[in-house]
């Protein structure tokens, strides 16, 4: 069974439905699956729960799905760059669940690794801890510290962006575009990866594969715009 699809739309065919939970990789606009987000928009699936560190910007990234009101709920750590998001949230049209970034990453990792919950000290004594189980554990000095329980997260669909991939679904990410994608690949019932380049099987060094093919069900080569949010440069002296 081939995992390779010709277009982003074909790669999502038959797997998008209303009310599903979608994980989308990326940090800011870095490493987001631009083409698969567009294909998800075009699928028309609505009432989506989107799990993603950020919510894109107006008119780009997950901002596209906010514009069309396809997202019912966002699970994120930081959403500060999106006016449409702000408008929908303040207007009560959009649900929002904040997670500390490390907690979000670990919840996704745990979900994909078959771990239903774990304890962390992140967020103890804050709004994040409200309604969550608290438990005490001794630290290495024997002092008692309080932790809260967080649950693992899974998704019906994970859409991620990688640098290179092969027909077996093995993926290599580039630089800081890796971020949440390897964990999301594990946590998706179906994971679809878009890559800058599909390379022949055998050309990726098995020692340097970031995401093994078992976590990836579909793969598509697609060109990304790769927008830069904050262009910062220095002068040549």
């Amino acid at each position, binding site marked *: 069974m081939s995992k390779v699809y010709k277009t982003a739309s074909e790669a999502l065919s038959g797997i998008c439905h209303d009310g599903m939970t979608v994980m989308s990789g990326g940090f800011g606009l870095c490493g987001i699956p631009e083409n698969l987000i567009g294909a998800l928009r075009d699928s028309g699936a609505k009432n989506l729960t989107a799990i993603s560190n950020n919510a894109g910007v107006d008119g780009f990234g997950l901002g596209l799905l906010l514009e069309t009101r396809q997202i019912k709920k966002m699970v994120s*750590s930081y959403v500060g760059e999106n006016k449409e998001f702000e408008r929908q949230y303040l207007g009560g049209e959009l649900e929002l669940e904040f997670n500390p970034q490390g907690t979000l*990453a670990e919840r996704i990792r745990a979900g994909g690794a078959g771990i239903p919950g774990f304890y962390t000290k992140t967020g103890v004594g804050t709004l994040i801890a409200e309604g969550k189980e608290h438990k005490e554990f001794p630290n290495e000095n024997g002092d008692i510290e309080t932790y809260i329980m967080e649950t693992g997260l899974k998704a019906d669909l994970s859409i991620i962006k990688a*640098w290179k991939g092969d027909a077996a679904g093995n993926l290599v990410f580039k630089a*800081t575009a890796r971020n949440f994608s390897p964990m999301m690949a594990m946590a998706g019932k179906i994971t679809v990866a878009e890559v800058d380049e599909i390379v022949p099987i055998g050309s990726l060094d098995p020692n340097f594969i970031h995401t093994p093919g078992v976590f990836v069900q579909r793969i598509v080569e697609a060109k990304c715009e790769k927008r830069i949010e904050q262009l*910062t440069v220095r002068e*040549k002296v």
Partner: protein
Amino acid sequence: MSWTRDDMAARAAKELEDGFYVNLGIGIPTLVANHIPEGVDVTLQSENGMLGMGPFPYAGEEDADLINAGKQTITTLPKSSFFDSATSFAMIRGGHIDLSILGAMEVAENGDIANWMIPGKMVKGMGGAMDLVAGVKRCIALFDHTNKRGESKFLKECTLPLTGQNCIDMVITDLGVFNREGGQNRFRLTEIANGVSLDEIKAKTKADIVYE
């Protein structure tokens, strides 16, 4: 006269020690990287998945796939490494990062910090701040002593939703340096910025601090 943002960053940079792994927050803390003392080798961690953050790229050499946690384009160093977000926060939560320098909206006299939301206004989110203050060995808060209305941001208790409890070890503001390390519960004023009087600090500080 008080310290400028660059002065504050330069003062914070004196806390860096050779061999330290350091996470710098967005805003004034980012400027600390410009003041790393000669002969002190520190490795900067960026929570989006990089150790060994290099300077901004030369114009035309920027790479959209290579950014810091402030979404700014950056470069690598020979010692750099990349990793996923779960590994990044294993470093942070697991106590492997020596120092976190972060901005604050409010800090309380018991070391509580608030820097992620203002109820009723837009909530941007905590990003990695809650993980940093919970997990990093030592946390320094770097902020302007008062807000735009001249009100103290160094308080008896935080009024905004907390980022973390009892986690700030040192405060550096435009007026001075306050330390509660070495088993002390209360912050002690340890340095006064050039041209600032003790009376001004007392007038602009609501936290109960040791002055001597």
